């Protein structure tokens, strides 16, 4: 870690690997993941079911269920400190305070027997050491901030609709002004018009408080609307990452191209979609070489044999594909990103 990296990067994940071990079978959920994020930046983490998005988030939060989960290697450097080496006690002070997380399902992430005011106040009470009265005061303010009248602080979760509940969840997550917000599919359970409201709210709050955000989603459109940077995950690896414009408009990895081919485009009609063939590999028995090669339209025999290294194709734009390796000089990803 250089001095410079400390001041620049809020979060830097280096070579993170997480496995789950069940009945003697090892599931390789995250394999050598590298991600960096600066203050105030928003990173979209895109991937399909089983790509390892949520495990990555749990890894950052130190919440990988153990057993069966285990962090095999890597560093999660947050503001100069490796969270993985941090004592449990200290980590608890970070979680919910400096890093907070929004889960996918607003229905189950609220406690049904506590009022929403109590639930927001609880976080403030735990982390800020203020009086009970002050915490409730702040809870009311947080509700107003997410567009819910403060008088509703005394209501229970079931008295709110899905979109409103997700706002409450956001209020809880932002209650302590976190430096980093991890949002795991925050709008997937919501209707499009409500999703638009919630995304607008998150964009607004993020810019107001300069909060860095990792937005985990499978929706390329949501990322396009909200994020500055993007990382595409496949089988536990980041296959392509970089500035959103680079990745979206100058796509390098065949998987990313496949994702774009799979979704119907509202602006251009096509007769047929161009899906990626086959399906996600079995995470307990990942394919050799490039993990995408069995589904890749451009795969050659080399792809099955050797593992691609991350290749820097432009400033900050990284892709893992052997085709690129033969065209561009391989670069050490850590040096490039740090």
């Amino acid at each position, binding site marked *: 870690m250089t001095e410079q990296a400390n001041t620049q990067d809020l979060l830097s994940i280096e070579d993170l690997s997480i496995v789950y071990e069940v009945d003697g079978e090892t599931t390789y959920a995250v394999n050598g993941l590298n991600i960096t994020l600066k203050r105030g930046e928003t990173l979209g983490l895109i991937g399909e079911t089983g790509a390892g998005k949520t495990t990555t988030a749990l890894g950052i939060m130190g919440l990988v269920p153990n057993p069966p989960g285990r962090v095999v290697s890597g560093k999660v450097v947050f503001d100069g400190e490796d969270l993985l080496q941090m004592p449990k006690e200290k980590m608890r002070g970070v979680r919910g305070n400096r890093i907070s997380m929004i889960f996918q399902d607003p229905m189950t992430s609220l406690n049904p027997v506590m009022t929403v005011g109590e639930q927001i106040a609880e976080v403030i009470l735990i982390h800020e050491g203020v009086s009970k009265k002050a915490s409730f005061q702040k809870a009311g303010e947080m509700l107003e901030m997410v567009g819910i009248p403060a008088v509703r602080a005394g209501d229970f979760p079931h008295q709110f609709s899905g979109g409103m509940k997700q706002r409450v969840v956001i209020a809880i997550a932002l209650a302590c002004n976190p430096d980093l917000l991890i949002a795991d599919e925050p709008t997937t359970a919501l209707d499009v018009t409500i999703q638009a409201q919630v995304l*607008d709210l998150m964009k607004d709050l993020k810019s107001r408080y300069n909060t860095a955000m990792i937005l985990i989603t499978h929706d390329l459109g949501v990322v396009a609307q909200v994020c500055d940077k993007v990382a595409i995950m496949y089988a536990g690896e980041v296959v392509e990452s970089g500035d959103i414009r680079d990745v979206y408009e100058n796509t390098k990895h065949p998987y990313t191209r496949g994702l*774009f081919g799979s979704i119907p485009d*509202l602006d251009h009609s096509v007769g047929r979609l161009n899906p990626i063939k086959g399906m996600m590999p079995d995470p307990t028995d990942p394919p050799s070489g490039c993990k995408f090669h069995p589904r890749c339209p451009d795969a050659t025999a080399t792809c099955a044999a050797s593992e691609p290294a991350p290749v820097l194709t432009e400033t900050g734009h990284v892709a893992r594909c052997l085709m690129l390796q033969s065209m561009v000089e391989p670069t050490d990803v850590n040096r490039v990103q740090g």
Partner: protein
Amino acid sequence: MSDTILEVRDLKKYFPTPKGTLHAVDGVNFAINKGKTLGIVGESGCGKSTTGRVILRLLEATDGDILFEGQNIRHFNKDQMRRLREDMQIIFQDPFASLNPRMTASEIIGEPLLIHNKVKNKQELTERVAELMELVGLSPRLVNTYPHELDGGRRQRIGIARALALKPKFIICDEPVSALDVSIQAQILNLMQDLQEQLGLTYIFITHDLSVVKHFSDEIAVMYLGQLIEKAPARDLFSNPTHPYTRALLSAIPSIHLDHKMEREVLQGEITSPINPAPGCRFAPRCKYAAPECTSREIHLNEINDGHFVACAMAGKG
């Protein structure tokens, strides 16, 4: 006219609840031509799934007519319905919940054939199931697998094979791809498109995903709180959305194009209750163009352009 395979007239489905009558489907009219796809879009609770189930008589309509090939099927008896099931089928949203976990792929696909005595012996059953599996792109090796051993895409293929077993003419697809990952979703959409061409199927495609519905449908109907508020040929609806709700809905879709910033029509508030709804336009409480006229009378679909219908009192008035 003779091309019409299905027509619904003033279809209503009410549910009694402790708080009052829930108007899930409230006076829906439309017709579909053979071999075409009608997309029904709307947000959760708008009554789109209920409409599908009422048409298939999995739920009994409260009022209205359902004309299938000219016959009103609403009062068909059990025997007539059984025969009709061969022509009308459904594909469900959740490829896990819609397959019996204790039956194998081949048992599930073969069940309709057994129920309708379409096969004479075991040999024929095995052959028909194998044909169906090939038709939907399932490997023959999977005949004896149980649903929980398969991924979502393959489970959905089993659901499609079951729906096709009786060689139906008409299939209601209730969010058939929304539980699937994008890459798998595209595979299933392509399969359904191929099957439509190959077998001359007519689809009602129910979804909340506007980009999917645009890609897939010939005509699109937008539902809001139990009513159709706009119906138009797919391209027309997207190029010229007229109802304020349709406009808000379309502008809410997050585009994958970075420079594509459609002017957002952010909707205020959330969907109102479908229990004992107020008369007039259901969308009026959230509509920024609402006038007294909107709630003083029932607003019906009105043709504003060739094949483009809108239920808005303000349509055409600027």
